[in-house]
């Protein structure tokens, strides 16, 4: 009897290991394969020996993207949530919305809240795919390729297999074809406590944005009109609602002459003065530059080819979104 009990215990140990590996192997073989972009904001995170910490763009979810009962409830740390995904560009996916109710169909990831909802703005979610284990010593090469905080940052696109229950398993990764850099050419001399009426000159920064082709083929970008290839978006931590005050990019036609061809290694740089009307925002019934009405909130510049450019550029145009690192009206973040 005792020997049977010992055998049972040993078998149980093997079963635990078998279930762990088997479930993941099943998902790898049968799950839907998609790519998710990790935000290019991670270089500051410590590299811990033999794994790279991944931070997905939807690790932080804004309040507008929350649905179900969770939209009206506090949400406790550890609560189960489901991130419903939508196709972004090519095989890349982005977050559509997040809910505490399991979707009946569609592609979704299972996750848990990292913190109580009241403790932070928006939701911080963990999906169980935040660590990429690599052979010891190779992690630093990945860090270097991903870029530095003050230089070019290249997003990693992680390939995952998603099971029907929302469990995700990392299959591998690739690098984005396009990298971005961000500098502040002009930083307003002010801080949160400055009396804005006493400030002379612009209240918002001037940015220098670089988009570099890090692939081995020519990429086409589109930035027609008054830099209509760029949008300024609030980060997920910001709860206030912002709308762009500038309407000049709506329905703007794009011709083949507006396309920018970037050879491998070549960069396209633009200077964006956020105190100009092009970048003014509508918030809380006011319209103006972010330096006046949004000094506490953080934003990202996002490059995305206008829809009209997709027709003009055909398959060669680079599709997708490329966010820069975050910034406020008077400093760079991340």
């Amino acid at each position, binding site marked *: 009897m005792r020997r049977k009990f010992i055998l049972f215990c040993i078998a149980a140990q093997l079963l635990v290991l078998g279930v*762990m590996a088997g479930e993941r192997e099943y998902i790898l073989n049968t799950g839907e394969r998609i790519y998710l972009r990790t935000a290019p904001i991670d270089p500051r995170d410590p590299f811990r020996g033999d794994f790279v910490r991944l931070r997905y763009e939807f690790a932080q979810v804004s309040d507008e993207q929350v649905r179900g009962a969770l939209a009206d409830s506090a949400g406790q740390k550890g609560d189960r949530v489901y991130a419903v995904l939508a196709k972004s560009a090519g095989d890349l996916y982005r977050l559509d919305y997040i809910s505490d109710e399991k979707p009946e169909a569609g592609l979704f990831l299972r996750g848990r809240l990292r913190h109580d909802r009241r403790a932070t703005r928006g939701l911080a979610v963990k999906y169980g795919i935040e660590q990429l284990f690599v052979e010891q010593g190779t992690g630093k090469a990945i860090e270097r390729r991903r870029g530095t905080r003050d230089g070019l940052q290249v997003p990693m696109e992680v390939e995952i297999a998603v099971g029907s229950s929302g469990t995700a398993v990392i299959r591998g990764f690739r690098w984005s074809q396009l990298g971005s850099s961000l500098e502040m050419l002009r930083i307003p001399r002010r801080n949160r406590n400055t009396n804005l009426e006493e400030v002379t000159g612009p209240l918002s920064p001037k940015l220098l944005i670089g988009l570099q082709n890090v692939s081995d083929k020519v990429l086409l970008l589109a930035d027609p009109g008054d830099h209509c290839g760029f949008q300024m978006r609030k980060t997920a931590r910001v709860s206030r609602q912002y709308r762009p005050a500038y309407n000049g990019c709506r329905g703007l036609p794009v011709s083949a002459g507006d396309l920018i061809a970037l050879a491998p290694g070549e960069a396209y740089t633009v200077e964006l003065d956020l105190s100009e009307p092009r970048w003014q925002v509508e918030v809380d019934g006011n319209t103006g530059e972010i330096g006046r009405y949004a000094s506490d909130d953080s934003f990202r510049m996002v490059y995305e080819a206008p829809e009209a450019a997709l027709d003009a550029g055909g398959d060669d145009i680079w599709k997708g979104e490329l966010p820069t690192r975050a910034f406020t009206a008077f400093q760079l973040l991340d």
Partner: protein
Amino acid sequence: MSKRNRWLQDQISAWLDEGLIDAPQAASLRLRYPTGDQQTPWGRIIVSSVGAVVFGLGIILFFAYNWAELPKFAKLALVFTAVIAAHGTGFYLSSSDTAKRGLVESLHVMGTMLFGAGIWLIAQIYHIDEHYPNAFLVWGLAALALAWAMPSVAQALMAVLLIVLWECFEVFDFSSPTYLGPWIVLFGIIPLAWLQRSRALLFFALVAFIALYALGAGRVEGDMVLAAMFYCACLYLAASRLCARSAFPESAPVFATVGFSVYLVLLYILTFHEVTRALLDLSPEGALQWSYVILPLVGALSVWLILLATGAWQQADAMRRWNAGLISFSMLLMCFELVGVSREQTGFFTLMFNLGFLGHCLVMIVAGTQRLSWKQVTLGCVLFSALMFARFLDLFDSLLMRSLFFLALGAGLFLIGNFYSRRKKLQDPQHA
């Protein structure tokens, strides 16, 4: 074999040589005081188990390199093969030769180590980043199950360590106490330690239980840690007297050592005015908060009552009765504090705890002197000095008073030392 037993065996041989006793008498004496050589080979088991653990760690680190050239299925095959080989060999040997118990036990320990390594390695292979304390729980439960199945003290020790790690990571890394940890130790480990008559396992289990219990209490209401641990210590102290009359009397000193150590440290902390005031301010709310104090209190009181009812205390010597009286006195004080006596009584309670602690110091010194136990006398003096220094800082500002205080304390310790030496000389036949 203990030193005393070795001495006795040597003496029996000498008496036999000198003709003081004959061979049958020597054999009878040796039968009466066995050397213990036929008992469980704990030394071999412990060394083998430590070797297995270190070997297992080496394998974990080897796999943790995460060789890129090694295919995924080769890594998995290695993980499964290692677990099967370790457990399989242990299982095979256990059926063929009972004399290799140490080897069998260490092979199974290595198997469980490799199982734990397997959990982390499979997580590495599939880049799993789940709630990692769960891995410690599963690993600990696996060790616990084998500990009962074999039965194995080494597996149980591993289980204790893993359950403690699990609870600690839950509490400190995720601020989410599970409340289960102490009960797994209480119902899963301590009975096994009892059945196996293992004092080492019992010691670690008792330490683990009180630590985990305090962790849980701390997460529910931080200020309750002291009260919860205090009553747990009282429960251990009461249990130690009960165990002395049980089928496993060797467990009594283990209960007493852990219980008295924790009890004295807490009682010393309670001699401080601020701590007593914080306890008076404490007002547990709800059943969960109260349960952390009530359960060990009820347990301790029940065991004390059993001891009284069975006459165990009446048979104890005077020093033990003094100690029991002081412990009961402290428990009563703590009860009054928790039920919400006025905050204005802080000074009174602080004084009472000081007197209680002082009483224990004096009992220890007197008992140590009577029994000629230098350890007990030294401990009593150290605790007495600690109490005096604490009150010295609280009470005396004047340099004159401070100098008088040091003179009195030094003279007191000198007198104790002198008294102890004189008693020892009187007891020593060579000096008599």
